């Protein structure tokens, strides 16, 4: 199925959970923050959230900044 990740189309397997998506990025999940369809999802919830067609996900992390 197709979801949007950080503004770009991304095909993922049906039933992919948020935690699985996060792990696929190569970033340690504990360093990431996730928004699903504009709502912030707490990290404990990620294993329980199965993505659906058309979902928009934002994955963010801390970077250097002033």
């Amino acid at each position, binding site marked *: 199925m197709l979801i949007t990740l950080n503004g770009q189309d991304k095909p993922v397997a049906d039933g992919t959970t948020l935690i699985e998506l996060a792990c696929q990025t190569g970033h*340690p999940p504990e360093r990431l923050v996730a928004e699903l369809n504009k709502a912030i999802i707490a990290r404990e919830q990620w294993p329980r959230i199965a993505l659906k067609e058309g979902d928009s996900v934002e994955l963010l992390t801390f970077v250097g900044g002033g």
Partner: protein
Amino acid sequence: MSDSLLLAGKEFSSRFLLGTGKFPNKADLKTSILASGTKIVTVALRRIDPERHQDNILEYIPEGITLLTNTSGARTAEEAVRIAHLARAAGYGSWVKIEVINDSKYLLPDNAETVLATQILAAEGFNVLPYISPDLYTARQLVAAGAAAVMPLGSFIGSNQGLRTRDFIRVLIEEIPLPVIVDAGIGAPSQACEAMEMGAAAVLVNTAIAIADNPPLLAQAFARAVTAGREAFLSGLPEKREQAQASSPLTGFLHP
């Protein structure tokens, strides 16, 4: 008696804050943090690049350092609030530096949007450090909103011009019952020292150190300058003396 920096009820042993942006070599960031003794660093939140894996900045920030999430990228209060919420969800505490900029030419902060964001986030329990153009009315509104400090800019971000706004910063130091942390535009340790001599509570430096040839050495110099300026302030600097005017006596009549 301790002279720690007191922010939102927490004590910090250093009055030097370090920004982590623009460091070409992340390892330098870690060494700079250690060499300067800073206890508060700013970080930003960005989308990860799903295609590339980058070292996470947090790897380079030692334990025990308070992360101050900068809402850079926000152009409105709403965006700043969203970023703050994201940072909190990341589990790294509730310290946020509000930076709302809708001006890509000068990078001047939007004081009005900053006040709005502060009102919302302070009410939600965040420790809010708002970055502003030094304006007395804005600062008073921030006090009322529950900010933990005010952060007036010294000069344009990245310009290294020092305390161009010194007279206005002085007004804030005099009138605002919150720590005044000078941020932006500080390019040399002498400028940081000057800010502390004036009575600023702390100073934040980023660009000057990040782009230096030897960031850790410069970070250490800055930290020492901040300490020197603070000690000068505490010791009570003598007033610059006016020259006496030669003119007809005003008080001769009192002792004829």
